[in-house]
């Protein structure tokens, strides 16, 4: 597959995986028929032609560089939903959301002009790859499986399979950034509630 061919097909993976997940519905144990049909129907929907272009190319108009992270997280979620192995545990998902949140907070405000410093520029130099490698090593050592996703992100930073030549676009995109921030807020709220409950329980237990 040539690199141009990859540039054409790569942006389709994330929308296809996301739509397949949506079509599976909220049932945690979808039927075998639905598990097979959902990805096929998703592919069919994305191939519907709209003014000379399939729907998926209209999505690529706006997002031609879905991050490798988002694509792999969607694939991991879909594999688990259709009855495949659960590759990620809850702590692996938490690491994915936390790192996504940190990356979006470092990247987007400055890149969109809130500061004289352009954080997006870091993605054209070695610093972002070094930082990602450091985080990956830490996650590998503590046994967090999000590290394996980051290993593939690092390979993306080396071989640049996407239309973008900026390393940030391998690590994060706006969709993954927004999901991560929402998920991190929900994790923090649930942590506060749980620690609040346990705190209340401890206070009640005191004589």
């Amino acid at each position, binding site marked *: 597959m040539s690199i141009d061919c990859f540039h054409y097909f790569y942006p389709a993976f994330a929308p296809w995986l996301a739509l397949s997940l949506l079509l599976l519905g909220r049932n945690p144990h979808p039927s075998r028929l639905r598990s097979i049909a959902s990805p096929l129907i998703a592919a069919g929907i994305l191939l519907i032609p709209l003014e000379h272009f399939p729907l998926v190319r209209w999505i690529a108009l706006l997002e031609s560089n879905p991050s490798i992270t988002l694509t792999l997280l969607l694939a991991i979620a879909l594999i688990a939903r259709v009855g495949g192995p659960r590759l990620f545990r809850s702590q692996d998902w938490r690491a994915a959301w936390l790192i996504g949140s940190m990356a979006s907070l470092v990247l987007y405000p400055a890149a969109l002009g809130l500061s004289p410093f352009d954080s997006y520029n870091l993605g054209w130099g070695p610093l972002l790859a*070094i930082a990602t490698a450091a985080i990956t090593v830490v996650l590998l050592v503590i046994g967090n499986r999000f590290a394996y996703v980051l290993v593939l992100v690092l390979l993306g930073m080396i071989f640049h399979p996407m239309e973008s030549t900026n390393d940030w676009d391998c690590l994060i995109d706006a969709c993954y950034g927004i999901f991560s921030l929402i998920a991190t807020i929900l994790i923090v709220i649930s942590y506060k509630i749980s620690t609040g409950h346990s705190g209340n329980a401890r206070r009640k237990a005191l004589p």
Partner: protein
Amino acid sequence: MSFGARIALALILLVLVGGVLIIGNGAPVASGFQIASLNLPSAKAEKPFYQEEFINASQDLPFVHVASVTELVDHSLAALWYGGPYEHSPENQIYFSKERDGIWLSPQIIMTTEQVEHDLNRPIKCLGNPLMLPNPDGTLRLLFVSIAMGKWSGSQLNTSLSKDGGTTWSRVERLTLSPFFNLSELVRNRPVRTTEGWCVPVYQEFLGKFPELLWLSERNGKISYEKTRIAGGCSTLQPSLIPVDARRAFVLLRDYTKTKRIFISRSADAGLSWSKPEATNLPNPDSGISGIRLPKGRLLVTFNDATWGRSNLSVALSIDEGRSWKRIAILENDNEKSFSYPYMMQASDGVIHVTYSWDGRKVKEVTFNEAWVNEQEAKQP
């Protein structure tokens, strides 16, 4: 996976990343500016000379905009603009014209919406600002804006290469310059040659409006690029880059604040960092400007001399590196018309060329020499 295997994987990862860092990722590092040398024929240099003409006199379009003029490797001139029924029309096209023996040839269409959609394999709304980079090997690099959705905030930058002087163009490539859906990057003003390739003034107008520099280089026909920032916020845009030497440069900036003045910023490290933009004594009605540096160090700028509207176009001169400016000439003044987006360059024969949108319907070119500038300066009190 066992702890030992995880440690082994971590070590392999460190070696892999380290290896890549040693090899380098091939992106161009911001590099020193090259100052074009002038080859002044005495007749053109000594006698005041001023001339004006329409580049697209034969073209009858309701809307033309963002014209630029470039000196090619063979010292001939080429002009570029976009036009069509109206500003954001899908029917807009990019036009290219060459000058032969002092006459501008009929404009050629070099890029259409359909061509870009075909090459990029995705829909676009319309085309916008084009810019030409004449490479030393004789090839022409075209940078141009396409709009994905909405108006200018939904713009993206594309590039194509011509190896036959602009007759045919390579498949269009999209440049990714912003992390947020790659939206809102535009070109408009004159590029500057660097030791590694080109430094192109660009700007963003999405949530903020701010000036940036795009650094381009080409190796074996493959383009690589990176971008650095001049200023952030919602402040100034459309930088006009004026190099002094390899390290020092100015940018003149279109104002997007309530100050209504042309801003100036300075760099002493080849464009990597810039001083905080300061307002000059020249007005700016949120409109495009263009400046050059003359061989003796004086700065020249073409601008709309008003705080509102674009019904005039003037030239001002600075002898103190942009600290103060003196108006020396009025190129246009008609309350019924609009004159905008000047693009100024000095060719290797010393002649100064200014192109601009003439009432949004024609591309006008004014040419003069430094002797004319001196004459105009002497006339002013």
